[in-house]
C-alpha cells in the first residue's frame, strides 16, 4: 500500500478519495448498466462456486457477503488487508457472519477479547458459532488481560500469513491504534474486523468500512408472519447500515443470515415502506 493511498484514507471521507476508488465510482455513476452486469456476474459466480473469495480489487482478495450487500459496495464485497468496524446491538452476530465470509480463504480465525469485556458482554460461546459455520479447528481464541494486550495480540495475528481474519473486541478504537492495525494487516494479508461495544462512536479511525448492526424489531418480524418461530429456518435477521465507508455511499440493508449458504440474504419478511423508512434512517445516520 503506497503512502498516497494511506493519506487518502485518513484525509476524510467527504471528498472523493484515492484514484483507485475514483475509478470505481466513475464506473458506478457513469453507466448504471455496468453495475448491474457486475451484480449479475457476482450472482453467477456465487451460484457456480458457492461464493468464494476469488475476486480481487487492487490485488486484494475480496470476501463476498451476499449478493444484495456486495452490489452496493464499490469493491463488490469486503476487501481483505483492511479494517471493517461493526458496532451496534447485533455486532457479535454480524461480525461472526462476516468472519465466516473471510474464511473461504485458507487460514485461521483469531478472535481477541479482554477479560473485562468478557465479564461485561459475555464470553464467546463456541456452540453458538455453529449456525455461522465457524469450525472449532480454525478458531483461535485469545483471552487477553486488558485492552492493550488485546490490540498487541491482534496486531501480531494480523501480521501473520496464516490468519485469514482477525476479530478484535473493543470499546475504544482510536486513530493511532487503528492505523497500527492497518499497517499490520497490509503485511499479513488477512482481514480485520473490529467488534465495537457501546454506543455509536463517530470519531474517525482507519477502518475502511463502518457498520452499525441492529436486530430486526419484533414488530416487523411479526407483521408479515403471525408465528415468529416459523422464521427460524431463514436465520436471524438484522438491520445493517454502512454509515461510513471510504469511497462508497452510505447504504442500508435488512438482511438475514442464511445458515445453508453461510452468507447474508436480503431479509424476506418485509413490511411495505419499511426499507424506505429504514434507508432514510441510514442516511440521517451517515450525516451525524
Amino acid at each position, binding site marked *: 500500500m503506497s503512502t498516497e493511498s494511506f493519506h487518502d484514507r485518513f484525509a476524510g471521507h467527504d471528498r472523493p478519495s484515492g484514484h483507485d476508488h475514483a475509478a470505481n465510482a466513475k464506473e458506478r455513476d457513469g453507466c448504471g448498466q455496468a453495475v448491474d452486469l457486475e451484480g449479475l456476474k457476482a450472482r453467477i459466480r456465487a451460484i457456480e462456486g458457492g461464493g468464494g473469495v476469488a475476486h480481487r480489487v487492487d490485488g486484494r482478495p475480496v470476501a463476498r457477503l451476499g449478493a444484495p450487500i456486495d452490489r452496493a459496495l464499490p469493491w463488490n464485497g469486503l476487501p481483505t488487508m483492511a479494517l471493517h468496524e461493526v458496532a451496534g*446491538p*447485533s*455486532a*457479535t*452476530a454480524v461480525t*461472526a457472519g462476516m468472519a465466516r465470509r473471510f474464511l473461504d480463504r*485458507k*487460514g*485461521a480465525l483469531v478472535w481477541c477479547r479482554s477479560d473485562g469485556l468478557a*465479564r461485561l*458482554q*459475555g*464470553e*464467546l*460461546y*463456541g*456452540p*453458538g*458459532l*455453529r*449456525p455461522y459455520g465457524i*469450525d*472449532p*479447528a480454525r*478458531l*483461535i*481464541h*485469545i*483471552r*487477553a*488481560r486488558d485492552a492493550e*494486550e488485546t490490540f*498487541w*495480540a491482534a496486531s*501480531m*495475528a494480523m501480521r*501473520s*500469513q*496464516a*490468519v485469514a481474519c482477525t476479530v478484535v473486541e473493543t470499546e475504544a478504537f482510536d486513530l493511532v491504534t487503528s492505523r497500527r492495525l492497518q499497517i499490520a494487516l497490509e503485511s499479513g494479508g488477512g482481514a480485520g474486523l473490529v467488534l465495537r461495544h457501546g454506543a455509536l462512536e463517530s470519531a474517525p479511525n482507519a477502518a475502511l468500512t463502518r457498520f452499525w448492526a*441492529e*436486530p*430486526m*424489531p*419484533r*414488530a*416487523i*418480524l411479526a407483521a408479515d408472519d403471525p408465528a*415468529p*418461530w416459523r422464521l*427460524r429456518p431463514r436465520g*436471524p*435477521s438484522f438491520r445493517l447500515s454502512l454509515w461510513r465507508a471510504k469511497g462508497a455511499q452510505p447504504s442500508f440493508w435488512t438482511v438475514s443470515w442464511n445458515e445453508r449458504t453461510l452468507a447474508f440474504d436480503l431479509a424476506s419478511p418485509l413490511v411495505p415502506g419499511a426499507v424506505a423508512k429504514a434507508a432514510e434512517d441510514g442516511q440521517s445516520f451517515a450525516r451525524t
Partner: protein
Amino acid sequence: MPVLRAVDAGARAAGLRPGMRLADAYGLCPALVSAEADLQVEREGLEALARWCQRWSPIVVADAAIEAREEGGGASLLLDMAGCLHLFGGARALLWQVQDVLARRGLTTRVALAADPLAAWAWARFGAGDRRILKTADPRLQHLPLAALRLQPRTGRALHRLGFHRLAQVMAMPRAALARRYGADIVHRLDQLEGRRPWPLRPVAETFALAEARNFAQPIGRTEDIEAVALGLLELLCQRLEHAEQGALRLVLVLTRPHGQAKRLEIGLGRPTRELAHLRRLLRLRLEDLLLRSEEGIERLELQIMEMMPLKPAQTGGTGESVDRSADLARLADQLELRLGADRVVRLEPVASHVPERAVRQRRLAEPATATAWPPLSPRPLRLLAARPRPEALGLRPEEVGILEGPERILPEWWRPEDATAPPRDYVVAILRDGRRFWLCREDASQSLAWGGWVVHGRFD
C-alpha cells in the same frame, strides 16, 4: 531437644560434633555461636551451587540425602565428568581447580574423583591422603569405614555390633550369605562401589542438549548489550541445530550475576524450529520484560537448548520465505503464548455435554484440534454470561419479552458429584421488542414459572 546439625572447623577443634545436644555443646564451648538451621534455605543453596557447578559438567547431582548429624552425613555434589576432563587439563588439575574456586567462595570442601559415583562420594567423605583419584574397584576402598556404603541405619548398626568396621571385612564375606542375612541392599551397594551396578542419580538441573555461553571480564548491565550477546549466541546455536538437523523445543537463557545468582528465562515452542528470525523475535520479547538492577550487571550469559527434536530442512518458496502455512501459525502461537501465557491462547473444543457451561473446553494450541464441527444442538447463544445476571440488570422487563423458542429442559449430570443435588434447568430463547435475543434460564425448573426465577445466561446478537 535441639541438636547440632553442622559445625565449622573451629567448633570441631573445640570438640563439637554434629548430632551433639545444643546444651552440651554450650557446656563444652561457652563461646559457641549457633543459628537455627533452615532446611529449605539449605536445600535451595545447595541446588544453586549445583547449578553453578555446571561450569565443569552439565550433569550435577545435589545430594542431601543423608542426615547431617550422622557419620559422614551432610550435603554433597556429584559431577559427572565423563568426557569433560580434558577441558580442564586432566583429573589432577580439575580437582585442584574445584577446591580452589570453591574455597574462594568461602566453602570448605573435600573432593575425590573415581570411576564410579559411590566410590567418589565415599572417598571424598572418608578417604585419607593426598591421592584422591581412584580407578575402578580401587583396592584402597577396602580401608574405608562401613558408613561409606550408605546402608540403612539399622543394617549398619547390626553389622557394627557383629564387629564389622571396615569395608574389607564385608568384602571378604560371601555375597550370597550377606544378602541372605542383611538383605539385597548391602550387595547392591558393594556392586555400586565397585562399578558393577549403576547408581541412579537425578541431576539437579535438567541437562541441556546444546548450549553456547559467553563470560565477561567486566559485568555488562545494559539491556541492549545483553540482547546483542544473546542474539549472537542464538545464531551460533541455530547453526549447530541446522548442522544436526534438529529443531529446538525449549530454550533457557541463563543470566549469571557476579555473586553467582542466576536468572533463568525460558522460551517454549509449540513445534520444533531452528528458524533464526523467529527465535530472535521470541528472545527479544522475552528480554523485553527483563528488569535488571543497573548496578549489578551480568558476568555470564548462557543460552541452552533444553529439548530438541529431529527436523528436516524446510521447504521454502522462491523468495526464501516459508511456504508452510501451519508453520506460520505455529510461529504466531509461540509469540502470543510467550507474552500472554499458554492458557490465554486457546482453541475452543466441543465436549459432549448438555450442560451449557460444560459443552466447551479450552485446549492449548499445541495440542492438535480434534473436532471439526460444533455438535448440532438446539439454538445456542453467541455469548455466554458466566455471571447469569437477573433480567432487570440488562433492562429486560417481563412485559417486553416474547418467547421465540423453547422451553428446553436440561437435566443435571447426576453422575458427577457436584451435580448430585442440582435441579433441572429450563432454557428459552427470548426476543425483545427491539429484536434482541437472549437466552433465559430458569435455574430451578421444579419451582414455579414466576419471572423471579429466571436469569440471563446468554446473548444471541
